[in-house]
């Protein structure tokens, strides 16, 4: 089956998605799952009255089935109690869409998961005592990057002294503090390919730098670490570990900046 061979119902929800948007208010909670790196990111918003979902909306970045499943999920849960909605599965959503291509079952049918996250967030807020304490996401950064010493002066930089070194280069900056954010921003004057990588869920820095970053051409990769720097004689690529998905992939770069 071709990846685009969707049922008519799926195509209808892709073409005319129901409930696109966000909800706000004291009785609203939201859940977010997925990762843009993998091609899908979904947010589901629920409005709750007397333990019942009275409205639901979504925003999705993703393929046709990602959009259709988000739309269908929000349609299905309206009127359900929170307990009922917790029971809703990916399979229920796929069935209601008259099936999805097998290859799409896993990757893009995340909307039910986003819904469950929203319900958990709502319950945690209503009953703070019962909420399971969230384990801290913070991990002690691993300092050893394989290849860091080997490629010193061959594409690995421990400081930014001459901006012209980076002219037209593909530069990866590890987020090690405000100085690294400033460096990433400065280098955008030399090249349009600057990636800032952080193990956190977002770049933690000053409001000013955050604003500048949002307006700049710097690409941010979150929840990721560098395991290894690779190349023949000089830096050619890095091995990235995506902590959220626990996946590894290679990113092609010419320079790596590690300001310690």
């Amino acid at each position, binding site marked *: 089956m071709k990846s*685009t061979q969707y049922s008519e119902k799926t195509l209808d929800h892709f073409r005319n998605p129901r409930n696109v948007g966000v909800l706000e208010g004291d009785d609203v909670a939201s859940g977010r799952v997925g990762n843009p*790196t993998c*091609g899908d*990111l979904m947010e589901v918003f629920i409005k709750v009255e007397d333990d019942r979902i009275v409205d639901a909306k979504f925003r999705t*970045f993703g*393929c046709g089935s990602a959009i259709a499943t988000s739309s269908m999920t929000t349609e299905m849960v309206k009127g359900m109690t929170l307990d009922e909605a917790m029971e809703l599965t990916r399979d229920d959503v796929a069935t209601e869409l008259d099936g999805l291509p097998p290859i799409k079952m896993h990757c893009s049918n995340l909307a039910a998961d986003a819904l469950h996250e929203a319900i958990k967030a709502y319950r945690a807020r209503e009953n703070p005592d019962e909420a399971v304490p969230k384990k801290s996401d913070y991990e002690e950064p691993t300092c050893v990057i394989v290849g860091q010493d080997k490629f010193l002066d061959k594409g690995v930089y421990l400081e930014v002294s001459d901006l012209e070194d980076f002219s037209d280069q593909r530069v990866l900056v590890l987020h090690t503090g405000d100085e690294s954010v400033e460096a990433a921003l400065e280098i955008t004057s030399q090249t349009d390919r600057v990636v800032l990588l952080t193990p956190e869920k977002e770049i933690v820095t000053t409001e000013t730098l955050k604003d500048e970053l949002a307006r700049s051409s710097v*690409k941010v990769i979150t929840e990721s670490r560098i395991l290894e720097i690779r190349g023949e*004689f000089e830096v050619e690529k890095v091995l990235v570990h995506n902590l959220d998905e626990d996946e590894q992939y290679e990113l092609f770069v010419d320079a790596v900046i590690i300001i310690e």
Partner: protein
Amino acid sequence: MGDIKEVYLDYQSSKPVDPRVIDGMLPYFHERFGNASALHRVGDVATEALEESRRAIADYINADHDEIIFTSGATEANNMALIGYALKNKRKGNHIIISEVEHISIRNIAKYLEREGFDVSRVPVDKYGRVVLRKLERRIRDNTILISVQNANNEIGTIQPIAEVGKLAEEKGIAFHTDAVAAEGLLPIDVKRAGVHLMSLSSNDFYGPRGIGVLYMKKRYRVNPILIGGGQERGLRSGTEDIAGIVGMKLAVEIMKREMPGEVDRLQGYRDRLINTVLDEIPDSYLNGHPTERLASNAHFRFDGVEGEAMLLSFKDKGISVSTGSACTSKTLEPSHTLIATGLIHEEAHGSLQLTPGRFNEDNDIDRVLEVLPEVLTRIRGMSPIYNPKSR
């Protein structure tokens, strides 16, 4: 789709056969159906057509007629070039170099050779997708027997410095293969000027029939056959020749030879209009590939906050056929290896759109895609939680 005209802008993935080619092929299915190996008169007619086609195609690429081997397409030509040459020369060495942006057929053949005990190096490209010669040279070893670098990239249209690669290979005494399929009809192909020893061509990319291709094999750069049988094509490629297909490829090449200059000008006009309008009018849009060293028919973009399959489906609903490098449309769910090799992060590769006009497009096809594109992007971006407009 009612009375909306279908618009096809995916010529890089497949081309229609030119009707003039079909006319010229027809007699070879029934009247002149002979087997070129047969000695009777019916066989002679086939042999004549076969050899005339061989000469015409050799002429077109500045080769000798005995350097042309007909195959079932570029995939087979690639297999012959890499596997056939590696097997023939394994006593000389077992190291092969390819680029990181080769067509999937070359990539998978290289993986096969690795499993069979050969050693493969992959040369990185710059951010425009061009092979970096310095990095290629550094990968050459004493036991390197073959370098394979495409003439131009089939996704982002970047033209490779093959004359320089050919020169380097010649100096080092290494065979040089190029997969020239993406460049067909868009760049002049001259094996002598490019210093190419082995080259793969496909008939379809000249607007000829599918199922036919050519391996150009320079004298002294022999390969082992990979199809064994009745010994056709001087024992290098067995199987009764598909004379109709071969004549079709010849006719397609002859038409291309006459019409290419005008056609390239026209396609380049389409390409430049697409690129200039999109980059000017669509916020947060970027060009993939090289700004100037690119095929005349290739416009390749990426858009912030958009996933390619959603874009493709939206175009499909409007009767427009386009292509994307997004993972969600591939069999493996991996994003385009070419886009990744240029240094894009996965999220960016997911939002790519490839538009490749060709011979049968008209001005209003370009009008239509430029009219539909902003609507499609606005709709998809409107649903996206990660789209933060940077410009405007």
